[in-house]
């Protein structure tokens, strides 16, 4: 017989453990389920849809036409600026007003690999927005006066914003010395690039026809019914041209150094070959773990966190450090970015290289590596699930391989990483060529060789 006292003492605890177990298990299951995309193809266009019934939906058109694929500088910028402008059927003004009336949101951006047109809408308006995206892709007018009056002006502002951001310039310069052409093409032409002579309405129209051809785009949707989406895509995307895509040569890593003097700020970016996107041959999760291990930004308030760089640069009050892994479809770039006051950037960049050497020598606490692995895993999974980055990543993966990565596979790839792998990754970075970009007060910013890097 159980005494009443034992029962009463243990019952709450038993209840507690069972509840915790159940909720954590359910949490895992729903996390993997919510991430699944239905992949299909309708009228020759790849469609991925995440069926999560809700009052709103999102649809993104991902075209492999980013700055990597552009034939001349500024084309990817201009193409993304030309989205939702006058088409053969209706004017840009009418599109804007109609979207306003329906209560949606349309936007267009571009990255190094993709031009992304995004529409967010109330779930009932799905057909309208599918038609709108198809119209923008196939029937945009690319009129000369819109190029002169709208696109060029926006491009000027973009250039100015870019010129005012030393860190963005440094990352761009690091890409250009690392990859030369293709991925090395500037994401937004700097103010001194003579892009106007290449940019004409006819040339953009020709680029758009290739960029928005059936084989070159993928549609990624969330929040709507897959059957409905496929039906409307099949109806509206029929008219898109098939075949012909902008070409880019396979990426090759070169390395080197670039120094740009500017008054906009100070930044040093030290870059190494990193991990490419998941599911490609150059995928090295240990590189992303190394990136989170070096880190620089804390994930928690009021503390420098565990990352090596943030601990080392704790004394610098006017410095921002962050390590990132830019993953592309056939290459990756691991960048250590430091920006802020020139003297602090100079000494912190020496610290960063020392820390990398420490990691290569295996002088890092194994606990830190575990934390870094957990954070890298979280970041990788979050970026797939996150609506903003996930749509482009999904579209990109769909275009590259035709299938999508499973969350469990991504998680698995991080679970298998050992400390030795991270150490070896750091070693191979140091033995290979680095790409160093210094932007700002060059009198104070160091050369790559002074930092002890091979260039």
């Amino acid at each position, binding site marked *: 017989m159980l005494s009443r006292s034992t029962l009463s003492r243990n019952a709450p605890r038993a209840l507690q453990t069972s509840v915790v177990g159940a909720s954590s298990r359910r949490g895992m299951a729903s996390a993997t389920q919510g991430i699944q995309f239905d992949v299909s193809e309708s009228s020759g266009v790849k469609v991925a849809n995440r069926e999560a019934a809700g009052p709103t939906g999102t649809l993104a058109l991902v075209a492999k036409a980013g700055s990597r694929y552009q034939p001349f500088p500024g084309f990817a910028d201009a193409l993304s600026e030309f989205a939702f402008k006058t088409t053969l059927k209706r*004017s840009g*003004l*009418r599109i804007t*007003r109609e979207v306003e*009336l329906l209560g949606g949101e349309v936007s267009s951006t571009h990255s190094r690999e993709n031009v992304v047109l995004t529409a967010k809408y109330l779930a009932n308006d799905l057909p309208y927005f599918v038609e709108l995206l198809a119209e923008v892709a196939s029937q945009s007018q690319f009129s*000369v*006066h819109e190029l*002169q009056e709208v696109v060029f002006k926006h491009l000027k502002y973009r250039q100015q914003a870019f010129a005012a951001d030393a860190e963005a310039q440094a990352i761009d310069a690091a890409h250009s010395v690392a990859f030369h052409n293709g991925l090395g093409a500037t994401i937004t032409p700097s103010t001194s690039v003579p892009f106007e002579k290449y940019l004409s309405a006819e040339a953009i129209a020709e680029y758009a026809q290739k960029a928005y051809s059936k084989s070159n785009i993928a549609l990624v949707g969330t929040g709507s019914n897959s059957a409905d989406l496929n039906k409307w895509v099949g109806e509206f995307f029929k008219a898109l041209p098939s075949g012909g895509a902008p070409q880019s040569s396979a990426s090759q890593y070169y390395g080197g150094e670039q120094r740009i003097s500017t008054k906009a700020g100070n930044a040093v970016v030290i870059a190494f070959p990193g991990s490419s996107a998941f599911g490609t041959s150059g995928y090295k999760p240990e590189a992303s773990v190394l990136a989170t291990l070096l880190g620089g930004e804390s994930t928690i308030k009021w503390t420098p966190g565990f990352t090596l760089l943030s601990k080392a640069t704790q004394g610098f009050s006017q410095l921002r450090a962050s390590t990132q892994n830019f993953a592309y479809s056939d290459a990756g770039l691991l960048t250590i970015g430091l920006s802020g006051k020139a003297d602090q950037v100079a000494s912190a960049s020496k610290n960063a290289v020392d820390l990398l050497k420490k990691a290569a020598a295996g002088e890092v606490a194994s606990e830190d590596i575990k934390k870094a692995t957990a954070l890298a895993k979280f970041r990788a999974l979050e970026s797939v699930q996150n609506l903003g980055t996930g749509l482009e990543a999904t579209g990109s993966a769909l275009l590259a391989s035709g299938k999508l990565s499973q969350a469990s596979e991504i998680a698995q790839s991080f679970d298998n990483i050992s400390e030795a792998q991270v150490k070896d990754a750091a070693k191979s970075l140091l033995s290979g060529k680095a790409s160093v970009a210094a932007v700002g007060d060059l009198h104070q910013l160091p050369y790559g060789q002074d930092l002890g890097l091979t260039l």
Partner: protein
Amino acid sequence: MSAPSLSSYIVKRPWLKNWMMPLANWYTDAAGYRRLGLRFDDLIPEETATVQKAIKRLPAKEAYDRVFRIRRAFQCSVSHTLLPAAEQTKPEEDVEYLSPIIRAIEKEQAEREDLDNLVVRR
């Protein structure tokens, strides 16, 4: 160009058009702008926002030619001379180059006005 015009009424009726064309050609020639090397679209008053915008949208070559014609005509006017016959505008050269752009801009403005005054019924 908002002056009342019978032209659309006449153009719609071929017999009337055939009858009126010689008269129209004579009148245009008698207006004399062709003898100064101008085209009809050069005479459109340019002191309005719409026409200014249209002039900005002209292709570079057209805009240059327009300024050239106007300056040449101005010189002729100052010196009280006409151009030699070879340099005068021929009827087939007197084509609309600015009016289509003006009409497009007017259409855009009308559309904007319509959309601004839109009443939504659901």
